[in-house]
């Protein structure tokens, strides 16, 4: 099996990924429409104005909590869940790989750790399927989502929170924490979208998060022998990749920087005025930048939907490939290769 057979996740995981993505995107769109209401006024209007946006934000927030609870339960009660869980826990190898990669970047190591060469044409027995990078992404997202959900629930009722901690400062601290976490998470998500959408081998979307590993064949070779290569040389780079990834990369960087700058300059939430260094949201550049960031999110949403379309197509293709056997009861497969293509199959 090569790493290009990129079915890493179970069916439930891929479904969960899509649902979580949809929910988190909605949380981002509403949360950011609230936070950068000057720059994203159109978004606020589209989502039903001030009260509509809060309503959606709170409802999707509950959705997020439900998803997380469902996920944790599943991890605990199913044996696949438990074994998957132990697989994503960082091991000694991951720490070594991380250290070696840092050394490599600093010029103190001759080569990157094998774990970091996932997509460089290595095969599964040479390179672990789940590198420390993958594990890190999972860990960071899980921790952030949990903290966001907890702080979000806590600030649901500010009066309740103030009463609980006997101080208003506690309520404001959680509010600020929730906002800053949102900023950090958004930057991560934008990068995640770029990373998995613009990968040269898989552009426009890396399907491993959409096509469950149970549907992925063991390897791409035609015979039963272990193939010599990973098959990476058979992939051709999409002609539009260079342009699109440059534009999208620029948008991601500008978006990330603008959101960061915006949350520092835009006095108020989540950075209180006393700490803000700028003078309000008057800058056109900031408005353009933050909107670019939102477009990156929008593209992420489209890619996520497209990933699901690809999965459905994949399923249909697998269906069709099975058809020749059913045709063996007297019917005749219509192509000599034994594999009718889509146009040939009737009813």
């Amino acid at each position, binding site marked *: 099996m090569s790493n290009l057979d990129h079915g890493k996740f179970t069916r439930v995981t891929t479904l969960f990924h899509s649902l979580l993505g949809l929910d988190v995107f909605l949380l981002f769109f509403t949360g950011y429409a*609230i*936070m950068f*209401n*000057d720059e994203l006024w159109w978004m606020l209007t589209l989502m039903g*104005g*001030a*009260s*509509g*946006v*809060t*309503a959606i934000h*709170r*409802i999707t927030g509950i959705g997020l909590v439900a998803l997380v609870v469902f996920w944790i339960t599943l991890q605990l009660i199913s044996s696949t869940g438990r074994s998957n869980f132990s697989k994503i826990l960082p091991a000694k190898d991951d720490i070594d790989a991380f250290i070696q990669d840092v050394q490599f970047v600093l010029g103190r190591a001759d080569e990157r750790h094998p774990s970091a060469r996932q997509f460089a044409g290595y095969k599964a027995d040479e390179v672990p399927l789940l590198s420390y990078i993958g594990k890190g992404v999972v860990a960071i997202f899980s921790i952030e989502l949990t903290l966001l959900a907890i702080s979000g629930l806590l600030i*649901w*009722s*500010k*009066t309740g*929170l*103030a009463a609980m901690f006997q101080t*208003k400062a506690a*309520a*404001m601290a959680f*509010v600020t924490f929730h*906002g800053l976490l949102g900023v950090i998470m958004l930057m991560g998500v934008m990068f995640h979208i770029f990373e998995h959408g613009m990968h040269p081998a898989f552009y426009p979307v890396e399907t491993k998060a959409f096509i469950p590993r149970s549907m992925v064949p063991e390897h791409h070779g035609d015979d039963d022998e272990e193939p010599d290569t990973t098959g990476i040389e058979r992939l051709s780079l999409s002609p539009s990749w260079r342009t699109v990834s440059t534009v999208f990369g620029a948008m991601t960087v500008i978006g990330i920087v603008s959101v960061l700058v915006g949350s520092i300059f835009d*006095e*108020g*939430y989540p950075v*209180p*005025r*006393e700490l803000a260094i700028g003078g309000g949201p008057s800058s056109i550049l900031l408005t353009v930048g933050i909107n670019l960031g939102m477009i990156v999110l929008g593209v992420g949403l489209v890619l996520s939907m497209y990933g699901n379309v690809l999965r459905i197509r994949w399923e249909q293709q697998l269906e069709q490939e099975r058809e020749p056997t059913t045709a063996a009861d007297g019917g005749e497969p219509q192509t000599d290769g034994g594999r009718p293509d889509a146009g040939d199959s009737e009813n």
Partner: protein
Amino acid sequence: MSTGNEVMHDGVMSTGEDARIFPDVEACIDCGGCVVSCKRTWDVPRDEQRISIATMLEGQEAASGLNASSGKAIGQGESPGETAVPMQCYHCSNAPCVSVCPTDSLISKENGFVRVRDDLCIGCQYCLSACPFGAPQFPDEDSGVANLVGSGGTMDKCTMCEERQDVGKGPACAEECATDAILVGTPAQISDELDNRDSGTFFNDVAMDIIFGDDASEFQ
């Protein structure tokens, strides 16, 4: 002008731009006149009020010799005894509510008034957590979308009767107050008046900085 025996109705010293509102806690007798006049003037709903009188240390006597000088007592670190503090929005110079409002629905206007823009407020209640004086109110908490998703409804608070001040009248509460416990004027005027009356400021330095900003030095 105020003379020693004629302090009545001298509470409103100037109105409009740069006018501030501030209580003289020595004069407040907890009669509720300000609450009534505010509600009557602005049709404030039954269970709401834009100004309230916080009574502290109810029924207690102050440290000896300071029974009618809460401000002084506080300044000396002594117990002020029972003290009634008219609390409303003080239209702070460094308004924490404006600072935290995520939708910019709270604004500090050029003329010194802190206004809430109803159409932008999403009822997140951040201002409620930020205001040290409990000014923000949420009358619509239980209606419409607010009821469904548990948000706060649109915020409402004391406007310092901006509309009345525009035509040269004082805020309803200050005009109505029988003992002139609510002072309206420039920081200098308020500070002078408090000095004349030999009343203290009652609030601590942090609160004074929030309310008056740089002008807090007038009160030292």
